């Protein structure tokens, strides 16, 4: 405790240091005066007495300093002095200061912006209590190459009782129709176990969570709603808890309202923005009652580990459990499936797929900052030659070298912190705009903010940047040769040889970094261009899709659309009405999986609609991991509307209906995969669901990139919507459409057929295609901006160095010209110097680029990470820029008038 009190005393001294100095001065004066009086009394002469008193007292200045230093604040006072001096120097050179501060502001601002995204998504813990105990449970069948296949109710119960987890909750994302509000709306629904909120450790703002012990069959009749839905559909009514809502015509009671800002842990916006949570124990109608273990009907699950258990420990216990279950149920878990259950930290599951892009972005923006630092270092070095005499004089007057180094470093850090503050100011003012340009699907987007850690990062980055660009000039100042510097009357260029070497090294670094960035950017650009130019295989022009959804009530007695024959009249009527809308030339209906390249529904489609497990007729496949394809259910007009050409056989027609045998149209990839040597027409297959009918292939269509822009050959199967029915529907319209009016018009038509149905998500297909590229577009655009900035800074750097070299050598150039060198010779020499720097930079940069491009291979499409054309092309481009930047100073060198140059020297 004593040291604390001592520190307090020292602080008091720091605050009142003027008073302390005055006190000391006064008491020393008193001492001298008293001594002098004493001497006078003993009969000395006045001035003799004063001298004697001083002699006995000692060196007052020295003693005063000693007393002052005793408090241990001189470093701080020196620092303040240096800061003040630094600010004064910056004011004296406004041009230099503005350029340097702006460069740093740009670098720090951009780096901090990207860091805030990295911080919010990758670094921050999830916003739940003890987030490190939260895991995602991922079932895999590596033996048959299937990942993330989901689990089922018996396995869930096994895990719940295993003693490894506090809670386990499957989570099943769904959409539903909410009726009762003025307009029927589609809501995003998450079906979870009753322990879900206890598992996450969150409480509703209003009402209560589910009773976590509830294990009654079927769906609980109570739901929780999100703050957003509460405000939007119930006007924030505080009595909402007394209300019931109809979800897919079933009646539910609202028991709680979640806090604003509470999001379900999800990877995409769609998964996060859950509006209604419903709970079930996953057995009893309408659930599949205690399904067989090979049927994996619960798509995802999260869990909270028992306290004190690490993921590794839990994983080994889960492995043991899996092994035991495989022994117990050998038929359900055949050995060659190699069933495994992986525990993945929940955060990893949510953000794992954006890590690569974000780290790449941070690296890119960090390089820009580094290049900015190098440029400022160059500026400082140039200024250091102008300040050579100042330094020499201060050293001659007794300043220690370390003291000068410290002073210059302080100046750089002041500069850099000013830049950092400016950068942050810009960042704060652009915050709204920047958040808007982030891709909306970024996981944890709403957690991105300028937090304390971000501010700390900016401050740290400023200090480090200041130290980096201040180091070279500071060290050079320390190594100054005083005599030499002082002798060089007014020339102001001292230690130039060494300094020039440093500057060249800096420019080489700059070029290397820019080259890496440029190559990364151009690889991404080419990937993007290739994706844009990928032959779609369908025509998105003039097509709009509008979604609607039929209810799936648990009470089948009130289900108007239970079977395909019951649904068909609705479909036909909507199609008929849709075709009459202004501008519409063609209309078709499909399920939500049939919307080409629709990302927002992607996860949902995989779970509910898209993935189709089937068996082929006549092929005895003893696998519980049957073939899988992407399935869409569409009306006959779909293919013509999207202009997907028929290759063989026929498309669906009006003769295919509920009564006739089930038919399918497949794409070429499907045919090639499953009937490589045979004619697929007439072949039959069926869904693995029990009781499914055989489906005959009647037509083969060309491959179209409706699933993924990056993949051209995805096996796809199309079923006739009239034969199968579907709940999540998309109405397709082609023609000269008024995109603003269509949603309302379609709503009117749908409502006039069935007023309880929601109409939502109206989009042109071109928008859907663009949205599927949004994340790629974002990283590509960012990296390109950073690369161009880097190129600009690097060319400024090379321009500065060459100009400097030319001005240093004016005298020499004058002599050369006088001795008969042609202007061309001079131009050549100077350009060569610029080129040399660029080549050195390019060599270093190419090595760096090779490493980086391999790391980002996962982000590329259609272009190899070592694409020689890109590497050579970018290197040549960079050298061209270097030559161009050297041109201006070279021309100045060429025009040196030998008479003037020699006279001035």
């Amino acid at each position, binding site marked *: 405790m004593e040291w604390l009190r001592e520190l307090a005393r020292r602080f008091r001294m720091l605050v009142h240091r003027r008073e302390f100095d005055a006190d*000391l001065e006064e008491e020393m004066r008193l*001492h001298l005066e008293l001594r002098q009086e004493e001497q006078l009394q003993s009969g000395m002469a006045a001035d003799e007495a004063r001298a004697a008193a001083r002699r006995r*007292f*000692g060196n007052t200045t020295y003693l005063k300093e000693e007393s002052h230093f005793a*408090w241990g604040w001189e470093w701080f006072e020196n620092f303040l002095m240096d800061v003040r001096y630094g600010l004064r120097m910056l004011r004296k050179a406004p041009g230099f200061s503005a350029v340097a501060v702006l460069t740093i502001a740009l670098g720090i601002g951009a780096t901090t912006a990207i860091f805030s995204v990295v911080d919010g998504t990758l670094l921050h813990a999830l916003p739940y209590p003890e987030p490190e105990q939260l895991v995602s449970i991922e079932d895999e069948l590596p033996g048959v190459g299937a990942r993330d296949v989901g689990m089922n109710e018996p396995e869930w119960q096994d895990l719940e009782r295993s003693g490894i987890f506090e809670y386990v909750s499957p989570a099943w994302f769904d959409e539903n129709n909410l009726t009762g509000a003025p307009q029927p709306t589609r809501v995003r629904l998450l079906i979870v176990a009753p322990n879900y909120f206890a598992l996450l450790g969150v409480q509703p703002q209003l009402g209560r969570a589910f009773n976590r012990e509830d294990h009654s069959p079927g769906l609980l009749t109570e739901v929780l709603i999100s703050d957003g839905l509460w405000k939007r559909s119930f006007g924030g009514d505080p009595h909402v808890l007394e209300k019931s809502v109809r979800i897919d015509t079933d009646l539910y009671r609202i028991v709680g309202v979640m806090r604003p800002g509470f999001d379900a842990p999800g990877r995409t916006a769609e998964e996060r923005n859950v509006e209604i949570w419903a709970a079930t124990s996953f057995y009893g109608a309408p659930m599949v009652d205690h399904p067989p273990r090979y049927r994996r009907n619960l798509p995802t699950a999260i869990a909270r580990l028992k306290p004190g258990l690490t993921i590794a420990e839990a994983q080994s216990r889960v492995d043991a459990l899996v092994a035991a279950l495989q022994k117990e149920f050998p038929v359900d878990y055949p050995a060659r499936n190699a069933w495994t259950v992986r525990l993945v930290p929940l955060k990893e599951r949510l953000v794992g797929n954006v890590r690569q892009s974000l780290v790449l972005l941070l690296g890119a923006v960090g390089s820009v900052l580094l290049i900015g630092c190098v440029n400022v270092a160059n500026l400082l070095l140039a200024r250091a030659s102008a300040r050579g005499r100042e330094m020499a004089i201060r050293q001659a007057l007794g300043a220690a070298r370390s003291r000068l180094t410290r002073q210059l470093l302080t100046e750089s850090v002041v500069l850099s912190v000013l830049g950092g503050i400016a950068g942050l100011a810009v960042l704060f003012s652009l915050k709204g705009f920047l958040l808007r340009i982030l891709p909306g699907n970024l996981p944890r987007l709403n957690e991105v903010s300028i937090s304390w850690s971000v501010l700390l990062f900016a401050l740290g980055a400023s200090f480090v940047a200041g130290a980096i660009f201040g180091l070279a000039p500071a060290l050079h100042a320390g190594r100054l040769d005083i005599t030499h510097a002082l002798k060089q009357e007014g020339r102001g260029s001292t230690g130039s040889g060494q300094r020039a070497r440093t500057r060249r090294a800096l420019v080489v670094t700059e070029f290397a970094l820019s080259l890496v960035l440029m190559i990364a950017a151009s690889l991404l650009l080419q990937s993007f261009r290739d994706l844009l130019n990928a032959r779609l295989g369908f025509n998105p022009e003039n097509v709009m899709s509008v979604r609607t959804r039929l209810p799936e009530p648990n009470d089948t007695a009130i289900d108007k659309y239970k079977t395909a024959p019951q649904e068909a009249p609705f479909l036909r009527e909507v199609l008929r009405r849709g075709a009459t809308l202004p501008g519409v030339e063609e209309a078709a209906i499909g399920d939500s999986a049939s919307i080409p390249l629709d990302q927002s529904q992607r996860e949902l489609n995989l779970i509910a609609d898209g993935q189709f497990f089937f068996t082929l007729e006549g092929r005895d496949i003893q696998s519980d991991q049957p073939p899988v394809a992407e399935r869409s259910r569409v009306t006959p007009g779909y293919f013509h509307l999207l202009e997907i050409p028929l290759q063989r056989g026929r498309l669906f027609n009006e003769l295919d209906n509920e009564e006739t045998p089930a038919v399918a149209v497949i794409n070429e990839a499907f045919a090639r995969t499953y009937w490589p040597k045979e004619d697929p027409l007439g072949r039959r297959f069926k869904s693995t669901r029990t009781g499914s009918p055989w489906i005959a292939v009647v037509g083969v269509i060309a491959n179209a990139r409706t699933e993924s822009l990056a993949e051209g050959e995805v096996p796809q199967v199309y079923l006739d919507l009239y034969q199968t029915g579907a709940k999540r529907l998309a109405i397709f319209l082609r023609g000269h459409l008024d995109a603003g009016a269509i949603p309302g018009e379609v709503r009117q038509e749908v409502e006039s057929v069935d007023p309880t149905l929601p109409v939502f998500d109206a989009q042109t297909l071109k928008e859907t295609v663009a949205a599927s590229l949004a994340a790629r577009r974002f990283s590509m655009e960012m990296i390109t901006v950073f690369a161009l900035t880097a190129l600009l800074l690097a060319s400024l750097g090379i321009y500065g160095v060459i100009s400097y070299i030319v001005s240093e050598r004016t005298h020499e150039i004058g002599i050369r010209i006088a001795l008969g060198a042609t202007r061309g010779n001079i131009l050549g020499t100077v350009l060569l110097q610029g080129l040399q720097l660029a080549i050195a930079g390019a060599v270093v940069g190419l090595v760096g680029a090779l490493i980086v491009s391999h790391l980002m291979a996962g982000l590329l499409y259609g272009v190899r990470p070592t694409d020689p054309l890109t590497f050579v092309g970018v290197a040549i481009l960079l050298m061209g820029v270097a030559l161009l930047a050297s041109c201006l100073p070279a021309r100045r060198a060429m025009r040196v008038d030998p008479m003037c140059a020699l006279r001035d020297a």
Partner: protein
Amino acid sequence: MHRDEIPPGTLYLLILKTLARTGEMHGYEIANSIQRISEDVLQVEEGSLYPALQRMLIKGWVTAKWGTTTGNRRARYYQLTAAGRKQLSVEMSQFERVIGAITRVIEAA
């Protein structure tokens, strides 16, 4: 008259002891007191009292407050604290140990 420099490290001891004996003193009085009692043998460079007093203030061995001298002038009076008293006994025992050791070495010769 010949004056001896005080042995290094004993300045604190001298100041602490002087203040312990007399209670309250300003710098000039401390210097005079040390000289008078040592019968002018111990010569303190008077000014060096002040850095030493500053360090003792930081350590919390003494406190200082402004008062008036008999000649009616403003002076800063130093006073021993409890910590200072403890330090005095530490310094005393240390000093005695050193002196005792030196004495034994000399007498052994």
